[in-house]
C-alpha cells in the first residue's frame, strides 16, 4: 500500500505510531543527532544524515540479570536509514535464538527513510541501498509531500489509519551514492591470507589505538562480556551481559592465556570476522558500509582505504 501524506499528516502518523510503540528516532541533543526515545515528531525525525549510534544500541542493550525473563517490548525505529535496516536483518539471523534480543525485536516496527550519502559511506558496495527489510518507508518528494510505502501487514494496518491519498503506483527514488568503491570479488581471499600481508597489517596496527570506538558504532559489531555483578544493596549476585569488543586485551584472555596477544592480532581478527568468518557463518559480510567507523576512529583509520590497499596488494601478489 502506498499513500501520499503532507508534512502535517506525517507528524500525525508519528503520533499514531508513538501511541502504540516506544519510538526511537533521531533527536537533537546538545548539537548532536543521536538515536533517542521521542514522543513527538520534529525535523530531526526524518534526518538525512546518520545518527552516531546505530539501532543496535537499543536492540543489544546491556542485560543486568541474564537469569531473569526478558520483558516483551514494543519498539519502533522511526527514520532510520537503509544500511541500518540491512544490519538489523543480518543481526536477526545472528541473534535468532537470543531471548533478550527476540523480546525487543519480535514486535518491533521499522520505519525507514531516505538519506544523503556522506564522504565516508559506501553502502552500495554491500547492496545495503536496496529498499527491503522495513515495515514502512517514508520518501520525501520534490514538492514537499511524502510518499509512504507499507511493506508488511503491521505497516499497512498503521498506514490505513492515517489520512492521505492512496496511490496506485509509486516508485522508489534510488538512494544516492558516492565514488567510494571496493572490489568484493577477491576481498575474502585477500583478507584470509594474513601471512602474505603481515607487514601491511602491522603497519595499520602501529597506527591503531585499539580503543574499540569502531566496534562501538558498528551496526554489526555485537561482542559482549558476561560478568558476575554483586548488588551492593542486598549482596545478591547477578550474571550480567555488557558491551565488549574484540579490540580489548581482556577479550581474548582465557585462564591467563591470551589468544591474541598483540594489537595486530586483534585488528586482523576484526577484519577477519567481518569479511571472512561472517560470510561463511551468515552468508553475508558483517559490514553494511555505513562508514560510522571512519567517522568515529580517533586515529583517522579508514576502512575503505585499508580494504582497497589489501585488494591491490593481493592483485599484485597473485597476478
Amino acid at each position, binding site marked *: 500500500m502506498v499513500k501520499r501524506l503532507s508534512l502535517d499528516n506525517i507528524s500525525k502518523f508519528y503520533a499514531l505510531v508513538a501511541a502504540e510503540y516506544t519510538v526511537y528516532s533521531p533527536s537533537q541533543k546538545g548539537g548532536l543527532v543521536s538515536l533517542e526515545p521521542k514522543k513527538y515528531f520534529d525535523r530531526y525525525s526524518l534526518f538525512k544524515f546518520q*545518527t552516531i549510534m546505530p539501532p543496535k544500541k537499543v536492540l543489544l542493550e546491556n542485560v543486568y540479570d541474564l537469569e531473569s525473563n526478558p520483558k516483551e517490548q514494543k519498539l519502533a525505529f522511526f527514520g532510520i536509514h537503509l544500511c541500518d535496516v540491512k544490519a538489523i536483518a543480518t543481526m536477526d539471523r545472528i541473534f535468532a535464538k537470543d531471548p533478550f534480543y527476540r523480546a525487543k525485536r519480535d514486535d518491533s516496527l521499522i520505519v525507514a527513510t531516505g538519506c544523503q550519502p556522506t564522504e565516508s559511506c559506501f553502502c552500495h558496495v554491500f547492496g545495503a541501498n536496496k529498499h527491503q527489510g522495513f515495515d514502512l518507508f517514508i520518501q520525501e518528494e520534490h514538492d514537499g509531500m511524502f510518499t509512504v510505502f507499507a511493506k508488511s501487514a503491521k505497516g499497512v494496518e498503521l498506514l490505513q489509519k492515517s489520512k492521505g491519498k492512496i496511490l496506485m503506483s509509486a516508485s522508489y527514488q534510488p538512494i544516492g551514492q558516492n565514488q567510494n568503491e571496493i572490489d568484493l570479488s577477491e576481498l575474502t581471499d585477500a583478507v584470509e591470507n594474513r601471512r602474505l600481508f603481515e607487514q601491511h597489517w602491522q603497519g595499520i596496527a602501529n597506527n591503531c589505538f585499539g580503543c574499540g570506538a569502531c566496534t562501538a558504532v558498528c551496526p554489526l559489531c555485537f561482542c559482549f562480556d558476561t560478568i558476575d555483578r554483586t548488588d551492593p544493596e542486598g549482596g545478591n549476585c547477578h550474571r550480567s551481559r555488557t*558491551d565488549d569488543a574484540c579490540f580489548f586485551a*581482556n577479550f581474548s584472555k582465557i585462564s591467563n592465556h591470551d589468544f591474541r596477544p598483540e594489537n595486530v592480532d586483534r585488528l586482523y581478527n576484526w577484519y577477519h570476522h567481518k569479511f571472512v568468518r561472517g560470510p561463511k557463518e551468515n552468508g553475508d559480510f558483517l559490514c553494511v558500509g555505513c562508514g560510522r567507523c571512519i567517522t568515529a576512529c*580517533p586515529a583517522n583509520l579508514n576502512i575503505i582505504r585499508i580494504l582497497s590497499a589489501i585488494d591491490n596488494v593481493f592483485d599484485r601478489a597473485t597476478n
Partner: protein
Amino acid sequence: MTLGIFSLTCCEGCQFELLNFYDDFAHVLNFYDILNFSLAQEENLPGPFDVALVEGTPETREELKLLKGIRKQSKILVTLGTCAHLGGIQAQRNFKESEVKGKRKVLPVSKVVDIDYAITGCPINREEAYQTLVDIYHGREPYQINYPVCFECRHNQVKCLLKEGKPCLGSITRGGCNAICTTNGFVCLGCRGPVEQTNLYKIKEMLKKYLTDKEINQRLEIYGEFVDNIIKEGDRH
C-alpha cells in the same frame, strides 16, 4: 569484616566521593565495620583490618611509616584514586628539575608496598569502589575495566574530540568513568591511567598537530612511570 580508610598526601576528594551519597555508602556498611576513617569518625583503631583503602602518596617519613604499618595490619590493601595509583598531580614534580636539593621522588603507593587492587580515577567512581568492596567481601576477584574511554564515549553518542582538534587522551586512558568529561565536551586528561597494551607513541604523534612537544609531555606526565621512557626517548625510530 573490618575496614580502614586512610589518607596520605592528597586532596582527600576520593574519601569525600565515598561519602557523597551516604545512602549508597550505607549499603556497604552492611558488610563492613569501619575501624579507622579519620575523616568521618572520631574514634579510630590502629587495626588489624581485613581491607584497607589508601589514598594519596607518602611524602613524609611519618606517612611512609604509616603506610608500611597499614600494610602489616591489613590482609587486603586497595589504593584509592590517581595519587595512590600513579602519583597524581604531585608526581609531576618527578619530571621537573627540583629547586630544592635532596628532595625525594614522589612514589605512588604501589612502589612502596605491595598492593592487591587499585581503584583508579580522580576522583574515583564511587560505584566502582562499592562494587569492589562488596566483591572482596564475597571473596570474588573485583571486576576491573580494561578498555579505553573512547568506547564509553561513543556509546554516549558524542563526537570524537580528538578529531575536532582538541587534545583528548581518551583513546589510551582506562575507562569506567562512563566518559563523563568527554561526554560534556571537556577533553580527557587521563586520570585513570593508561589502558593495558596501548599505543602511546601514536597519541604523541596525533597530539603533535595541536600541541608543542613540551605541552604533550606535560599532558602525558599524569601517567607517571608508564610514560617515563616515552618522554625521555622522544619519537619512535
